């Protein structure tokens, strides 16, 4: 009996003692491949930080980040939750056919921010409608993966109620018809490879169907798929959704599209920071695990694209990352496309309109969930309204 008690004590004290020692002695890991981020390292001791409680927070983050067997333990936890029949783990639906789909509920969004974003975007769009005419303004809302690939969801699972967001925005517009919701068009192609299995973005093909919907909406003729030459640039892409759960699923392949009649493209990022003659950036994905960066090399504040298409039209595009794979299809329709990502954009928006006086068309393209959780939309547009 006495042996039993001692066994218990040795097991427990051994477990916490040895784990503590190993965690302390193990060399620090600086970068986590699986999480794709730099890990917290031992914070410096500083009396004022301790009094403010900052040191304690950093130290806890450090212990959590540097805990030994960290990746294994995460996999273990995900495995147990799966074993207990959970159909979503760490905010990700475990879908059919190797699809992982982000799960959103009201808890993920701030109601107030949601309303502010819709309000400020509508004020902006109404002003653009006034300046350029409703025929020259489009606001395209791209649905989240779980709202389109409904067949891939676990049974009874559903996407976020995006329709309330879209209709709330529509109600605020002076010309409601400029709002283009592409859910139905994408849904009708849901058997095809239109979203990556392991990432939240749409694929080039998904963006192409978005482009078709746009062309139909604006009365243009969309080019057929045959017009483009396809090139597969990666076969081993594991995206952001995968990073949250690390389940054993097929990697994605990334395909880019070249038009048969090549355009004379010049890309200028942030007024000369990067210059390129292509919309695709193969260099960017050699080292990076995020293969979606092939499209325009990822997000940045401003990308000024000249196409030499000779259409006499210049487009101002406010956008999130979903636009990066979409713009290549749009290139032939404009001489110039100025892409602005409000999350990184710190200059004045009024200045932007002065810098590009020949803007003829305005487009806003966002994924619905990214739009409602984005804290830049309301603040940047609010600042612009104050300037005006």
């Amino acid at each position, binding site marked *: *009996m006495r*042996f*039993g*008690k*001692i*066994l*218990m*004590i040795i097991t*427990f*004290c051994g*477990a*916490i*003692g040895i*784990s*503590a020692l190993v*965690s302390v002695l193990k060399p620090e890991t600086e970068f986590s491949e699986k*999480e*794709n*981020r730099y890990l917290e390292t031992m914070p410096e001791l500083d009396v004022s930080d*301790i*009094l*403010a*409680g900052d040191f*304690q927070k950093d*130290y*806890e983050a450090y*212990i*959590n980040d540097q*805990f030994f067997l*960290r990746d294994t*333990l*995460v996999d*273990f*936890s995900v495995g*147990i939750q799966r074993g*207990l*029949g*959970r*159909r*979503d783990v*760490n905010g990700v639906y475990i879908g059919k056919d190797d699809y992982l789909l982000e799960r959103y*509920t*009201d*808890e993920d969004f701030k109601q107030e921010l949601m309303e502010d974003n819709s309000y400020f975007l509508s004020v902006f769009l109404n002003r653009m409608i006034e300046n350029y005419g409703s025929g020259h303004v489009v606001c395209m809302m791209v649905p989240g993966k779980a709202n389109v690939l409904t067949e891939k969801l*676990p*049974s*009874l*699972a*559903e996407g976020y*109620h995006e329709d*309330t967001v879209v209709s709330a925005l529509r109600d605020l517009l002076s010309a409601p018809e400029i709002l283009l919701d592409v859910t139905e068009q994408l849904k009708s192609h849901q058997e095809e490879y239109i979203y990556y299995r392991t990432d939240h*973005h749409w694929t080039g093909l998904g963006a192409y169907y978005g482009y078709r919907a746009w062309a139909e909406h604006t009365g243009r003729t969309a080019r057929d798929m045959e017009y483009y030459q396809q090139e597969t640039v990666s076969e081993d892409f594991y995206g*952001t959704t995968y*990073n*949250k759960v690390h389940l054993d699923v097929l990697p994605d392949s990334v395909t880019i599209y070249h038009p048969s009649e090549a355009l004379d493209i010049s890309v200028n990022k942030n007024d000369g920071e990067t210059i390129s003659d292509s919309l695709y950036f193969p260099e960017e994905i050699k080292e990076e695990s*995020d293969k979606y960066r092939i499209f325009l090399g990822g*997000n940045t504040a401003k990308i000024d694209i000249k196409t030499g298409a000779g259409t006499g039209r210049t487009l101002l595009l406010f956008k*999130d990352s979903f636009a990066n794979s979409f713009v290549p299809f749009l290139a032939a329709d404009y001489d110039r496309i100025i892409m602005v990502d409000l*999350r990184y954009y710190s200059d004045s928006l009024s200045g932007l309109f002065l810098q590009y006086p020949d803007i003829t068309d305005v487009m806003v393209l966002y994924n619905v969930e*990214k739009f409602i959780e984005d804290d830049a939309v309301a603040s940047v547009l609010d600042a612009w309204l104050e300037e005006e």
Partner: protein
Amino acid sequence: MVFSSLLFLFRFLPLVLLVYFLAPGRVRNFILFIFSLIFYAWGEPYYVVLILLSTVIDYTAGRLVDKFLSQENRKKAKWAVAGSVIMNLGLLGFFKYGDFLINIVNAVTPLDIGLMELALPIGISFYTFQTMSYTIDVYRGEAKVQKNFIAFGAYVAMFPQLIAGPIVRYQTIAEELNARKENLNDFSKGILKFIVGLGKKVLIANQVGMVFSEIAAMQTDYLSTASAWLGVAAFTLQIYFDFSGYSDMAIGLGLMLGFHFPENFNYPYESKSITEFWRRWHISLGTWFREYVYIPLGGNKKGTGRQILNLAVVWLLTGLWHGASWNFVIWGLYYGILLVLEKSLLGKCRIKLPGFVKRLYTLFFVMVGWALFSIPDMADGTGYLKTMFGLSGNGLADRYAGYIVSSNWAVFLIALAGSTSLMAKLCGQKLFPENTARRDVAASVFSLGVLAVSVAFLVNAAYNPFLYFRF
């Protein structure tokens, strides 16, 4: 600092145990006191002053009461007790109820006083109640005065029960403070108790808690009656496993260090009446209010009218103790009324109801109570209750409710089973009887397993993939 963190499990606890057991017995109170202050100051570097203040107040009050009593001057002794009570309630009132009172004043008078917006010092509701109990016990002659400031400080700040109880009355551990015998048997029992509590918190409370917080955050138009009940069911399980898990961890840590704290929960959801529920839920709080409020007010000895008044006072205070907002007041009075009704009506009717009907009746009212309790905003809470009873015009059931069940049924079932005494009876008595080698080995394996899984869940919760589309 909380017990269910890697910081506590793999830094603080090993260090405390190491230092504590390497040190000779006479300095162990000192070690406990210092480590407890570090434990507290970790999250609240400035508020640690408050706990020291409360300690000094009651150490002094206790000495004074003792001195006056030995001079047979009960009046002066009473004043010393009053001083302690006023100062402790003053601290509690200022930090916990200040803004609540200001809001009331602003609402009923033309005044417009600015809010203080102070962060609530962790554990203040627990340690002020504990220190008051000491001075009162000394006055009543139920406890001996503590002349050693370190020993008294170790009692007040004792990290195992500092943050979330149980509320340990001074008389309960007075002897152990002065002379305790840590031993292998208690230590190994303590480990098991601690691990059970850790598992309750991390593996059950946190999991069902995610279901509750998701449902509570839903836009009201999208909430169906079925989802609302699922939300309350999740909260019912969450609060039990969270709170009793924390108490178990406290009791377990106490045992490791040689203290015997009272049990705080006794399978409350098995109760067959509301009265019984409150005898089995947060027992140390109920005991405190009975010993230091209800009985001194006269209890049930001064007629029915007075008893109802006394119950009203106790339950108003119980409600307020849980938080400074109106929903807690209503929640407390709700129980006050239910208990009076139970005493007056059910006591008289002699119809024998089957046990499961009584259990369902109790659980129903407890769940409605948790709905009141869990949503501080009165408008939100009213809306939620309306939906629960199908009065909001939202659907009875929807796809969402079905999904929640389909994805969480196993966790719910485990939680449900764990909230009854079935598992304890099966494992503790049938499969692994007390004092058998089989039990000891099973307990070791179980502890290691639960620890490993809990740590995995803690690591996963802190796991935070970098969402690179933002940067």
